[in-house]
């Protein structure tokens, strides 16, 4: 790259991002090779496939994949492409299958990915080796506490090492489950945003925008009887929160909760009849984790970005969000709700109801985020006149950075810049 996209000068208190990084098609092409093909990328959740033969299909890093359980009930990821002519083999969204048959010429694969049927196989010469033509797999597949990642980079470091400090924050999410396992709840929110994917990274853990972009949500909370405190001195937000870098481009905002949590802080919106259930959940947390850890799990909201494109927000509810760029100004977003495996029907209903007040394409907040990102993308067309976005909030501070500062955004961009510059 000849263009410098990130200026990072801690001594000069200067940090800027070049807006061409959001509009240039060549940048996206480089990102696909240097970032998406080299990092660990979120592929799905183990709970999406529970029994041998269960599968879901989706597109990751531009490749169609199958996430499935094989005959030994191990989680597998296959590239969902026929080895013969390259057609997509499994075209259903999800299901349970003995195997997968490509409809084009009828090649079939078993649930372990082996090629087990080739019509008219005798016409192939002796060089044809059926055993070498099973469904292809990414070079690396691994999971951490139910979150399944793949890497298309043969030289990828181990997942646990890659996740670095993000593990602590995934642990905080999973620790809310009495069974030690979280599960994906059925119902998927899939929508397109006409904006560059990195704008959603920023937005997903940018608390500086909350008070202005989400004023109507805050008003609704207030009207419903939720106490929204006045921001403490030196703060923009109603409660204290910090931004933290977690290594390898991962970062988080970690906030004292003021907005209610299904695990486990009751607010009037949940209704009086939900109070005993929330109290029961809290008591279980305390008895299992101890008072201090229970408070950490139940009384903080955390928005986590796992570099480059996984967001786990544990706030009004838990949402997993991932997004695939399809053009410099377009991304496809998928969002799910995550809940403790084995949680009571009442708790599950509270969790889902709480989710919808804030999150999703029909929520009281997310549509305004989408509008903001699309508005920014429109503005990026003037990058020649206004090439730089300043990202210096909190830069002169020693020590703790607020959730409304921009340390965590800078962390993402520093890693992005590093990978885009590395020889690859």
């Amino acid at each position, binding site marked *: 790259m000849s263009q410098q996209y990130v200026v990072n000068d801690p001594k000069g208190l200067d940090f800027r991002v070049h807006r061409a990084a959001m509009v240039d098609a060549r940048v996206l092409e480089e990102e696909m090779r240097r970032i998406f093909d080299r990092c660990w990328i979120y592929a799905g959740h183990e709970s999406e496939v529970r029994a041998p033969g269960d599968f879901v299909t989706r597109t990751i890093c531009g490749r169609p994949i199958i996430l499935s359980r094989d005959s030994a009930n191990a989680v597998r990821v296959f590239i969902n492409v026929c080895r013969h002519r390259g057609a997509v083999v499994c075209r259903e*969204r999800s299901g349970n299958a003995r195997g997968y048959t490509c409809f084009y010429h009828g090649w079939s694969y078993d649930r372990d990915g082996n090629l087990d049927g080739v019509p008219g196989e005798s016409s192939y010469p002796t060089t044809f080796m059926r055993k070498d033509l099973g469904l292809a797999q990414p070079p690396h597949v691994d999971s951490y506490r139910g979150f399944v990642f793949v890497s298309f980079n043969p030289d990828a470091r181990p997942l646990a090492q890659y996740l670095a400090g993000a593990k602590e924050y995934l642990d905080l999410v999973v620790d809310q489950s009495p069974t030690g396992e979280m599960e994906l*709840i*059925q*119902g*998927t*929110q*899939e*929508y*397109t*945003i*006409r904006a560059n994917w990195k704008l959603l990274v920023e937005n997903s853990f940018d608390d500086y925008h909350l008070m202005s*972009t989400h*004023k*109507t*949500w805050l*008003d*609704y909370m207030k*009207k*419903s009887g939720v106490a929204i405190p006045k921001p403490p001195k030196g703060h923009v937000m109603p409660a204290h929160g910090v931004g933290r870098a977690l290594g390898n481009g991962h970062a988080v905002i970690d906030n004292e909760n003021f907005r209610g949590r299904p695990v486990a802080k009751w607010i009037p919106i949940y209704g009086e009849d939900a109070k005993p259930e929330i109290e029961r959940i809290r008591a279980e947390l305390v008895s299992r984790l101890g008072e201090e850890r229970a408070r950490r799990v139940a009384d903080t909201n955390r928005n986590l970005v796992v570099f480059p494109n996984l967001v786990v927000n544990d706030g009004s509810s838990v949402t997993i969000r991932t997004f695939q760029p399809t053009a410099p100004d377009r991304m*496809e977003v998928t969002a*799910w*709700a995550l809940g403790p495996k084995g949680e009571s*029907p009442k708790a*599950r*209903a509270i969790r*889902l*109801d709480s*989710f*919808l*007040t804030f999150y*999703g*394409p*029909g929520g*009281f907040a*997310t*549509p*305004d985020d*989408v*509008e*903001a990102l699309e508005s920014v993308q*429109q503005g990026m067309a003037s990058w020649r006149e206004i090439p730089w976005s300043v990202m210096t909030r909190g830069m002169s501070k020693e020590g703790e950075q607020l959730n409304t500062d921009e340390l965590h955004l800078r962390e993402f961009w520093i890693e992005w810049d590093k990978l885009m510059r590395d020889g690859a």
Partner: protein
Amino acid sequence: MSLRSEVEDFLFHEAALLDEWRLDEWLALLTEDAKYRVPSNDAPAGDPADTLFLIADDIQRIRGRVARLKDPHAHAEFPHSRTRRLITNVRAEEMVPGTFSGSENVPGTISVHANFAVYRMRRGGNESVYVGRYRYLLRRVGGELRIAMREAILDSEELGRLGAVSFIL
């Protein structure tokens, strides 16, 4: 007048109110326990108690939604989208009491199915068509039809380029 004609008149009136953003008048068409739902595209027959929806409002959140949409700080709908609703294939039947559970069991409930195409137009060439079907439960309150439940079930495989359901679909 046939039940279907009466229901069609009611739905066409509701559509006009929504297209004209006369949201307080629309609210007045709802019962005190009304529900408004848009299921996720991949789980059109789900139950919001155990399935993630796009929208699953009780009357409190419907009122909150209207308050929000009237506020210029509802950025996704300010300026308001222009919408135009085409509603067809209306089928209506009086429900037989005792054969259904929950709110459907209220005597005099009318079950309605209809198809819709809702056009949404915003500046910048952002035009989209929401296609699907409506499911309504209507009740007579003081002789007038009122909405106890309205569900908009989208046909598209994913919300995709439609982006959001930030207006009342």
